[in-house]
């Protein structure tokens, strides 16, 4: 079941994630601010370089900024050019079945060819 109603399991997951993220944040702050000598005196010597405490957030923010531009560029690149047949038809429209016309019924949904659409829009009916 995929209902959005609250369940006891979800409350437990949420609280565990909340505690975990607070713990991770405190650990990050301690690693970034406490001088190395104090950490060494406690016996904790195997930490990554403090350079990364500043570098990783900067990398993340620059990646998010570039991601906006990259997504925009990817969208523009995947737009079909003006001279491609993708602007007129596609595989589903080519293989569609023609349903039989029934009296007094709404016609079935289908992809209307572009020549027919143009004639209907732009040539005035006499």
């Amino acid at each position, binding site marked *: 079941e995929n209902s959005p109603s609250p369940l006891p399991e979800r409350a437990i997951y949420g609280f565990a994630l909340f505690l975990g993220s607070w713990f991770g944040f405190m650990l990050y702050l301690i690693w970034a601010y406490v001088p190395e000598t104090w950490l060494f005196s406690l016996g904790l010597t195997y930490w990554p370089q403090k350079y990364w405490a500043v570098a990783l957030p900067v990398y993340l923010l620059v990646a998010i900024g570039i991601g906006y531009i990259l997504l925009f560029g990817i969208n523009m690149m995947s737009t079909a050019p003006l001279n491609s047949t993708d602007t007129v038809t596609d595989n589903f429209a080519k293989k569609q079945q023609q349903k039989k016309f029934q009296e007094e019924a709404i016609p079935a949904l289908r992809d209307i060819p572009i020549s027919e659409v143009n004639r209907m829009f*732009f040539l005035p009916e006499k």
Partner: protein
Amino acid sequence: MEEWWYRSASGARIALRRRQHSASCRELAVRCPRLRLRSLSAATSAAWLAAYGLFVLTENSMVLSAAIIITLVGLIIYLHFVKIDQESLLVIGSLGIQVTSSYASGKESTTFIEMSQVKDVVINEAIHMQKVIYYLCILLQDPGDPQGVSEVVPLFQSSKPRLDCLIEVYKSCQEILEQRKTAPQSS
């Protein structure tokens, strides 16, 4: 011969000229606005001022001669390869469709499409650079499949007329293309 004034997609004034050579032959030409003297002098002055600023910074007189040569060569290349003066469409009922582009330097580039390859001339809508534009295009027939489209040839790419001009061109072309169905096919 009739002439109407319209606007292009960017707002410039373009002229559509229609000539009826015979009952089954029609020529439609769209004329773009000419290169304006003020925009040419503005671009040239901007380029030369930038070059002079660079010369003041670097004290190298080659910058000035390079700027003059680049401006002249750039103008010639622009007039010969980029600036289109007129795009015309000649529809001959039993023969085919000829598309001509004439550039500002006098160069003309022509494409001819035989009538048996032409499926239809339609106004298509497509997404182009964050906008949805209407453009006229020739649909080429797929030799294996009578309902299929093998290729799309967009027309009037430089003058980019708006929908009212395109509807006029579309109606003129359809009057000639309809004669294909009534006249007997000879292969």
